[in-house]
């Protein structure tokens, strides 16, 4: 693995290797080994053109636990705010000896450009680009699903996952659909018609506009965040109506199967797409997803940087 730009870049075997590696790394952490040596002397740059405290912290913790040196670059107070291009930023990082760049960018395709333009020699990890993809989120979701639903299974065959909310703008949904299919799970998308992208019928998912119809048959319900700025863009009449039709309430949660889990990539809008009692219930694995995120990102960094340069 040289880069991780899209969940679709992974073969089934590679995806399983990431999950297995993450499981061993999580076990090491549980055994009290706080720091591992394999990336000693390597430099990981967190290049964040968009604010994301959680993802950046997760990558930073992951890199540090593998003994890498971490440089954080946030566009807000940097040369980018003075008008520097992605190319010049990349050339600067290359000159500083970055072995891997973790990039979050508001333009879809920026990580792909960074990886393939010949500006830098190190690996590139997509930490979310525009409305395109967020592959490490999909990997941590797959890891969480496997842990809870597939104890003795390498992949996610036979698991039914329902993704609810703003599919149109969600890179989390895109990466999840790709990876869940690679791992053999079935995916159902539930959203108002206005929040489904054109061409969604080619994704190979069942599509529904009705959350109540979709809940009982799911092994996992993944709620997506409704971004505040969307509320003023007439995708739905108002927050209350969205919440009424597409919010996960206690009443809806009680219709879920006994073993089914509730997921959310965070940050949550309590009372909007997920009610507070659901978020805090025993079925909610939201906090565990955060912990799993560090293990999965460690696995990705180790697999990209830990071996010989390919």
């Amino acid at each position, binding site marked *: 693995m040289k880069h991780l730009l899209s969940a679709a870049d992974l073969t089934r075997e590679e995806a399983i290797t990431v999950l297995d590696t993450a499981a061993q790394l999580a076990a090491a952490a549980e055994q009290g080994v706080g720091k591992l040596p394999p990336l000693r002397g390597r430099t990981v740059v967190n290049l964040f053109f968009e604010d994301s405290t959680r993802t950046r912290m997760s990558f930073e913790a992951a890199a540090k636990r593998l003994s890498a040196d971490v440089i954080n670059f946030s566009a807000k107070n940097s040369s980018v705010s003075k008008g520097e291009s992605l190319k010049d930023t990349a050339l600067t990082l290359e000159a500083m000896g970055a072995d891997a760049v973790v990039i979050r960018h508001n333009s879809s395709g920026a990580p792909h450009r960074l990886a393939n333009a010949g500006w830098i020699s190190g690996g590139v990890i997509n930490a979310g680009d525009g409305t395109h993809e967020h592959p490490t989120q999909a990997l941590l979701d797959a890891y969480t699903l496997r842990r809870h639903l597939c104890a003795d299974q390498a992949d996610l065959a036979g698991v039914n996952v329902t993704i609810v909310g703003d599919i149109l703008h969600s890179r989390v949904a895109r990466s999840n659909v790709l990876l869940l299919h690679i791992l053999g799970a079935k995916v159902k998308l539930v959203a108002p018609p206005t929040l489904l992208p054109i061409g969604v019928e080619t994704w190979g998912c069942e599509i529904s506009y009705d959350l109540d119809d979709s809940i009982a048959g799911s092994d996992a319900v993944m709620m997506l965040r409704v971004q505040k700025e969307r509320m003023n863009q007439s995708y739905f009449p108002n927050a209350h109506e969205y919440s009424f039709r597409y919010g996960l309430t206690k009443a809806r949660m009680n219709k879920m199967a006994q073993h089914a889990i509730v997921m959310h990539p965070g940050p949550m809008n309590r009372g909007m797409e997920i009610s507070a009692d659901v978020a805090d219930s025993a079925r909610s694995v939201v906090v565990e997803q955060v912990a799993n995120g560090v293990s999965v990102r460690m696995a990705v960094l180790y697999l990209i940087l830990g*071996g*010989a340069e390919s």
Partner: protein
Amino acid sequence: MTNNVTPAESSDSRVVLDASDISRALTRLAHEIIERTQSASNLTLMGIPTRGAALAQRLAQKISEIQGSPVSVGALDVTMYRDDLRLRPARALLPTKIPVEGIEGRLVVLVDDVLFSGRTIRAALDALSEHGRPEAVQLAVLVDRGHRELPIRADYVGKNLPTSSKESVRLRLVENDGIDEVAIERAK
């Protein structure tokens, strides 16, 4: 490491230990460990995956049969601590199992299949120190094939196997490969 990967059909292969030889060697190792550690109650066997871990389980079984009480046994993955990580594509990690007693203050016997350069054992000493400070660390191997590159020596050896550096030693165990066998293979 055990060997360089050489497909059986492309090399001369000579079986040097069969299943009963391996079983006898392990029995002798078990007796030696008991003798040298004087049935220490704080004995812990730590096998290096994959085959060393299987051998540690077998040794623990034999030792507990002989002395009539269970022996603490675990597995220790050394991948992250290897000095040749950068020479090959990233390797898969293997399970580490620390026994409930831990390793702090214990007499730890590392168990591996084939002792060759000694680099795996150096990595194991580093990996072990992350989990605690044993009272002492000893090393048991089924086969010592020579060609050490580090000042490391085994305390218990099942079989000394003089080899040429062009040969590779292939050890198969029922747990991993369906057969107990040690063969010397000559790379073509």
